[in-house]
């Protein structure tokens, strides 16, 4: 039986359970996806799209990562190598036992998105958190309207989830995938340019937009979206802060009176306008 959010509240939410890495996918030179199952081959817990998990290699440390997808018996996390822990995680092999705790955070407003046309914008590793939403929409295709994904990375080799982008997602009914890279390069005949400009050029007409990427991309994409006359509650993004506990106690991930680990990581533009711009 997978552990649900309610179960996590009953057990000690600060102590990880033991789990194992069952598969590792090299997405880009510095991004790998890890498939994680319990020791008896179950899903460690049942996350909603957009929720977070605390993954640990106890000798090195633990870190909070978005859960990019869930399967019948596993969850997936895509990690970019940026610091000590992610460097160590990039050195492990299948079979490695790890600690995992979660799920944490609010997740995407699935019910609100139901029946609506969705535009999902990702940049770089920013596709990782929104991939959980995309996978959910694909699995429950009839619950949602048209699905448009616009994704960009610095170069072709930096594009995450290429099998999804160029194979799997192109076959999904009523779904368009647009991919761009920052600069032209040999062997790339797709679109070249930055995400915000590409979104303006494509001028999709969704009802709800979800965007996730580096702060610079979000900063430049928001004006494009505002030009498209979205209401603030229909622009959704995810925020990142340093986290330790995951349950709104340890303090550090606060933005104003919100804790990103508990009240986020998903926020609407309407909510962000009420928070100090300190992230």
């Amino acid at each position, binding site marked *: 039986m997978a552990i649900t959010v309610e179960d996590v509240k009953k057990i000690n939410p*600060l*102590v990880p359970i033991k789990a194992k890495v069952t598969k590792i996918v090299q997405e880009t030179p510095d991004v790998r996806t890890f498939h994680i199952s319990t020791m008896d081959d179950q899903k460690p817990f049942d996350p909603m799209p957009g929720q977070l998990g605390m993954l640990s290699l106890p000798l090195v440390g633990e870190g909070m990562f978005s859960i990019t997808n869930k399967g019948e018996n596993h969850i997936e996390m895509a990690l970019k190598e940026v*610091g000590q822990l992610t460097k160590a995680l990039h050195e*492990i092999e299948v079979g490695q036992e790890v600690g995992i705790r979660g799920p944490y955070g609010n997740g995407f407003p699935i019910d609100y998105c139901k029946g609506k046309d969705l535009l999902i914008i990702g940049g770089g590793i920013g596709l990782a958190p929104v991939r959980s939403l995309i996978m959910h929409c694909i699995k429950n295709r009839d619950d949602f309207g048209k699905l448009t994904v616009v994704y960009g990375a610095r170069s072709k080799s930096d594009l995450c989830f290429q099998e999804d982008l160029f194979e799997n997602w192109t076959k999904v009914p009523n779904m368009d995938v647009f991919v761009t890279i920052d600069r032209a390069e040999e062997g790339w005949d797709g679109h070249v340019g930055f995400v915000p400009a590409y979104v303006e050029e494509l001028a999709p007409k969704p009802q709800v937009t979800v965007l996730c990427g580096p702060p610079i991309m979000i900063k430049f994409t928001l004006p494009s979206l505002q030009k498209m006359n979205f209401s603030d509650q229909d622009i959704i993004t995810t925020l990142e802060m340093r986290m330790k506990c995951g349950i*709104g106690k340890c303090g550090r991930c606060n933005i*104003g*009176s919100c804790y990103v680990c508990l009240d986020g990581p998903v926020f609407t533009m309407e909510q962000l306008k009420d928070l100090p711009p300190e992230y």
Partner: protein
Amino acid sequence: MKTILKAKLPELLEQLAKEYKVLVPAKLEGVSRFAAYRENLELALEENVTMPPKDIFFPQTEEMYKFKSKDQSLEIEEIPQDEKLQVIFGVRSCDMKSIDCLDQVFLTKGFVDPFYQDKRDKSILIALSCVKPMESCFCTSMGIDPQKGQGADIQAYDLGEKLGFEGITERGQEVLSKVSGMFAEEDAAIPSIGEFNLTADVEGLPEKLKDMFDHPIWDDISRKCLNCSTCAYVCPTCHCFDIASEVRGEDGTKIRCWDCCMVDEYTVMAGGHQPRPGKKERVRNRFLHKLRYFPERYNMLLCTGCGRCVVKCPVNLDITNVIKKLQEA
């Protein structure tokens, strides 16, 4: 009211210590703090203790679980908690209120922190009234009655030569019943509290601060701060913590320890992004947390007017003065 001569207090504590773990305000190596009662312990009852009682429920360093990792294998082992009930004697009203603040953080909003809850559940609190405010006290400005500790199991009163006791909760009555033979029963007048040297006007402040995030006053307020974290260390309500590992070879212990929003490592992310890069941002966060964010989230201020930070700050960054500046800005 049940009364006892102050001179008889060690005898009373001795008696309770047979049944419970008993924590009392005491002076240890020059610092007053709550300590397990033992014979010849130097009690510190003249004024409030330097170190607040928060470490009883939220230790400065606390082991969370143990682990062992070798090659690809991992074992995680939880650490059993002490089961014995503890009686905490002599908690002043400001510190009683701080326990209410900590309860809000650790026990509400969806998740309960089991480490805190465990220690909190087995604690019986004996509040102690104040007779004379210290120079740095301003609890009444924060809406606290220095003679009635909120949430106490037993309220004790400083009556001069004697101490008075009133059982409030069932658990409190039970503790008193264990030592009932030591008390006299008499009507006693509770001495009135003296004048307060410090005051702070917090009326309407959380609302006012909603529009003051970008106010230039924060440059002024933060200028002399050294980001030393002493204020948070002695604060009865500051509760932020870090989670870290102590590793020896293949074995390790996950610990949590007090942390503070004054330090760089608190918010810096892997990759180097720092949402609160300087002391202005950090000082602003600490005061906004106490005076705006916490009230927004839990409907109470995160300051109890105990005055410890006022005394200990090396550059005299006095919170009552900060409040005054914010009200006048």
